[in-house]
C-alpha cells in the first residue's frame, strides 16, 4: 500500500514542479490562480473588473490597471489582460509620437492575453473600443514601436486614437 502511495506522491510532485517551471508564476496568487485555472475553477473579481472598466472609460489608466490587476491577480483572464494592454495603448498614444515604454508593456500584455485566449482568438464586444480583437491591438502596438519611413508621413497626424 505504501509503494503505490509513494509513487502517486512522487508523480504528483514531479508534475507540479514541471508545471511551475513552465508557467513561471511570480507570486503565490499567480501560482494558486494557475492551479485553479488548470481545473477550470478560476474566477476574476467581478467588482474590481467593473471598477477597472469605469476608470478605463474615464481615461484614468493607472487606476484602471490597478483595479484590473486586483480583478485578475493571477493574470489568467484573457479579457482583463486585453483591457490592461488597451490601457497601455491609450495612455501611450500621442498625435506626434507614442510612448515606447508603455507600448512595449502593452505588447507584452496583449501577447499574454492571446496566449490565454482559447485557440489564441480574443474578441471583446465593447462599443467603446476602436479595436475589438487582440490581433488588431497587437498590430497597432507593434506599429507604434516600429521605426520606419511611414513615421514621417504628415497624414499620420490626422489619425486618431482608437
Amino acid at each position, binding site marked *: 500500500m*505504501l*509503494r*503505490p*502511495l*509513494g*509513487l502517486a*506522491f*512522487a*508523480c504528483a*510532485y*514531479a508534475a507540479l*514542479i514541471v508545471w*511551475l*517551471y513552465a508557467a*513561471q*508564476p*511570480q*507570486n503565490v496568487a499567480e501560482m494558486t490562480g494557475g492551479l485553479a485555472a488548470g481545473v477550470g475553477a478560476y474566477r476574476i473579481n467581478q467588482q474590481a473588473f467593473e471598477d477597472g472598466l469605469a476608470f478605463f472609460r474615464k481615461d484614468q489608466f493607472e487606476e484602471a490597471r490597478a483595479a484590473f490587476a486586483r480583478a485578475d491577480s493571477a493574470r489568467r483572464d484573457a479579457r482583463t489582460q486585453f483591457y490592461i494592454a488597451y490601457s497601455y495603448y491609450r495612455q501611450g498614444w500621442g498625435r506626434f509620437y507614442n510612448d515606447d515604454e508603455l507600448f512595449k508593456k502593452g505588447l507584452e500584455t496583449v501577447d499574454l492575453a492571446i496566449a490565454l485566449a482559447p485557440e489564441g482568438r480574443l474578441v471583446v464586444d465593447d462599443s467603446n473600443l476602436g479595436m475589438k480583437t487582440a490581433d488588431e491591438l497587437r498590430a497597432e502596438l507593434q506599429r507604434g514601436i516600429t521605426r520606419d519611413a511611414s513615421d514621417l508621413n504628415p497624414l499620420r497626424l490626422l489619425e486618431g486614437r482608437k
Partner: protein
Amino acid sequence: MTVVREAFVLPAIFLTVVLLGGLRIAEDVRLVAPSLMALVQAMLLVGCLMRARAIAPEQLMNAGRPALENCSGLVVLLALFAACAQVFNLLTPESGLLFLLFSVFFLVQLLTTLAAVRDRVPLLQALVILLGSVFLIRFVALEALYSPEAGTLKRLLTAVMEGVTLGGLEYRAHAPATGYLAFLTLALFVVGLVLLPSGEEPRALALESGTGQPRPLAAPPRQLEEADRD
C-alpha cells in the same frame, strides 16, 4: 532501507532539491531549467556515486524485485539525477565567462573524482567540500561583489573586470533569499545522498514480499570450471 525511505523520503528530498535548485529571486522570481552542461555534470556525478558505492542501484532495481518496487526504485534514481542536475544549475552562473569557468571547473573536478575516489565516505566528504566551496564563491563572494548596494570601489572593480574580459564577465545579482534557499537546497541534497542505499549496507532490502525471507539479488557467481581456468 525501509519502504518509507525509498517511496517517500528520498523522492521528496530530491524533488524538493529539483524545485528549489532553479529558484532565483531578484526583482522578479524565476525558475531556471538546467543547462545541457548541468545534465552532463549530473550524469558524471551519478557515475561517481555508483563507482564509490554511495548508491547501490541494484538495491533499488533488480530482476528479483516486483514491478512496483522497481518503479519505486526508478523514481528514486530519476529524482537523484534531476537533483544532481539542479545542484549544478544552482551553483553555476547562468551566462557569460563565469558560466564557462564554473562549468569547466566542475567538469574537471568530477572527472578527477570519477577516476580517483572509490569509497563512499571520502566521496561524500569531497562532494561536501566541493559544493560548499562553490556555494561560498557564488552566493557569498560574487553576490557581494555584484550587489546593487555595493560601494564605489566594488563597482569600479567589477567595471574593470568586465572591461578586461570585453564584457564577458556578466553576472546578475540576486536577493539574499536566493542564497538562503541555495544553502537549504544543498543541505537537503547532502542529506539525500547520505540516505541513499549504499553498497556498505547489508542487502536487507531483498526480503521476500510477505515472508521476510532473504532472497538472492542475482544468481550466485558461477564456479569456475577447470577448463575455464585453463
